[in-house]
């Protein structure tokens, strides 16, 4: 097992803020929009450097999406940002018609995704957003794993023409990917090569997958860990190559098991390979108040859950 260490923990939303700061100084077409959550989205540096290219919409997300679509017509690259729940479910029809169907170059940037938003509870903890966004034709869906990767992804999507959903979160998590990484949309990143089981993880669950890999190693199980930071378009080649080798699959995500990464991987497998797959995901429920750690525990999204899923997948393979 390749050794991963970290010197600090940081929130992925700060990676977004850092990426926006870079874009503010390098790409004059980038415009930031926010619906009354500037501090939560870490947009202060962008606004400080580019006050004329920041648009405060107030608590009016539908209008923010429509304005973003309109901005693209004049050649701007809008980054519309708010909490994941309000950036997707609340404005699904606006995204569908004015952004995705119209093929507009809007970047929907969603913080506080999943359970790890924590104490605010289920009203703010969307676990359906990846599914909602990946079902939209033309939409690219990205869920990076740590601060550095979120920063790199933020910068990368500005150069990609087309609608993008970029998902990140609130909790501080280990920073273990390189600061100077180049983010390639749609290209899975092999975190660890192994031969016994494939763990396809996304977002915060990639670190849990690494911890799981270390536990499995002690049991003599050699896990291949792959970071699926791009849910759509999915790197089918990487998935099939790995699953074809290990013939046992685990998917891990901070999302409802319906409609997320697990289902995307299952679709690829079912057409190509007969291999068992186990889901580590929220079992079709809403969240609740609690600390991020407590919630990950209660809803079964920890390294230990991944370990158990891996054992099960291997057992089913026989």
């Amino acid at each position: 097992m390749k050794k991963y260490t970290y010197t600090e923990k940081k929130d992925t939303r700060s990676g977004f803020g850092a990426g926006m700061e870079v874009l503010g100084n390098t790409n004059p077409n980038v415009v930031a929009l926010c619906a009354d959550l500037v501090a939560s989205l870490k947009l202060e540096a962008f606004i400080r450097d580019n006050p004329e290219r920041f648009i405060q919409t107030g608590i009016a997300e539908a209008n923010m999406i429509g304005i973003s679509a309109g901005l693209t017509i004049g050649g701007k690259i809008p980054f519309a940002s708010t909490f994941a729940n309000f950036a997707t479910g609340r404005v699904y029809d606006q995204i569908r018609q004015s952004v995705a169907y119209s093929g507009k170059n809007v970047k929907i940037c969603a913080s506080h995704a999943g359970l790890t938003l924590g104490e605010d509870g289920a009203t703010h903890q969307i676990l359906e957003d990846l599914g909602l966004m990946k079902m939209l034709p033309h939409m690219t869906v990205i869920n990076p794993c740590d601060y550095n990767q979120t920063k790199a992804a933020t910068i990368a999507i500005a150069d990609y023409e087309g609608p993008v959903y970029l998902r990140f979160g609130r909790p501080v998590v280990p920073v273990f990917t390189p600061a100077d990484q180049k983010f390639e949309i749609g290209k899975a990143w092999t975190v660890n090569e192994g031969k016994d089981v494939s763990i396809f993880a996304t977002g915060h669950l990639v670190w849990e997958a690494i911890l799981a890999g270390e536990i499995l190693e002690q049991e003599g199980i050699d896990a291949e860990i792959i970071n699926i930071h791009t849910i759509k378009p999915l790197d089918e080649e990487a998935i099939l190559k790995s699953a074809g080798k290990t013939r046992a699959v685990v998917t891990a995500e901070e999302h409802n098991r319906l409609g997320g990464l697990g289902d995307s991987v299952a679709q690829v497998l079912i057409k190509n390979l007969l291999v068992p797959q186990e889901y580590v995901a929220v079992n079709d429920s809403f969240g609740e108040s609690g600390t991020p750690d407590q919630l990950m525990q209660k809803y079964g999204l920890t390294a230990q859950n991944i370990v158990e899923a891996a054992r099960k997948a291997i057992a089913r393979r026989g």
Partner: protein
Amino acid sequence: MEINQLKDVASQVRRDIVRMVHGCKSGHPGGSLGCTDLLVALYFEKMKLAEKDGKPAFEMDGKGEDLFFLSNGHISPVWYSVLARRGYFDVSELGTFRKLNTRLQGHPTTHDGLPGVRIASGSLGQGLSVAIGAALAKRLNKDESNVFVLMGDGEQQEGQVWEAAAFAPHHKMDKLIAFIDYNGQQIDGPTISVLDNRDLAEKYKAFGWEVIELAKGNDMPSVLEGIDRARAASGKGKPVAVILHTEMGYGVDYMMGTHKWHGAAPNDEQLAVALAQLPETLGDY
């Protein structure tokens, strides 16, 4: 263009509308007929449009030209006809309206690259936000031209309209001119009984808009004068709303004064009656 020429164009556009909805046995003639005079006045006289060799030169970014957005996308027949008659695409394409494998979708869309259309509309309430975004881009690009948007009066029931209505004055979007087609009808009946818009002009004023009442929205000289008034009011720190009083179905007697023709197509006999009231001026497609 002279008033009489504009009236001739409007008559032909109305013929196109009823023939288009008849041809596919579906679509929305009522609101289309009511807004014909406005769209003809804008596209044939009042909007500053990019041109090359006397024809519109469509670019998505529309730099340096006035932009028009149709928020109530269901009145696509009038927009398609006006765009075609203005030269954005061939008038023969009007015969493909709402048919399989065509660019003239039931509600306007960009994904097949139809010249003149910059965003999809149909699901109501989104166009004012889009127009604001386009106007913000113009502001950032130091482009002084206007952005026009047309909404329905029933559409004012959508909450997003009021998110946008609050935003535009706050951000002094004074190049934005929003028309509201005040025909008093919607699918389920008169707007006053479905959900009353109640003091619409006062609402926009309270939100910080400059409001113009255009009483005769189906009278070409009045429409031209109203657009001039709206443009004169723009650039002065406030967005401009024009309450455009129209009659749904205007120009076809049996389609007027009722919501029945909001989204229904005439049969063969009804088509003949309608066409007899609308002189062919530029030649049918």
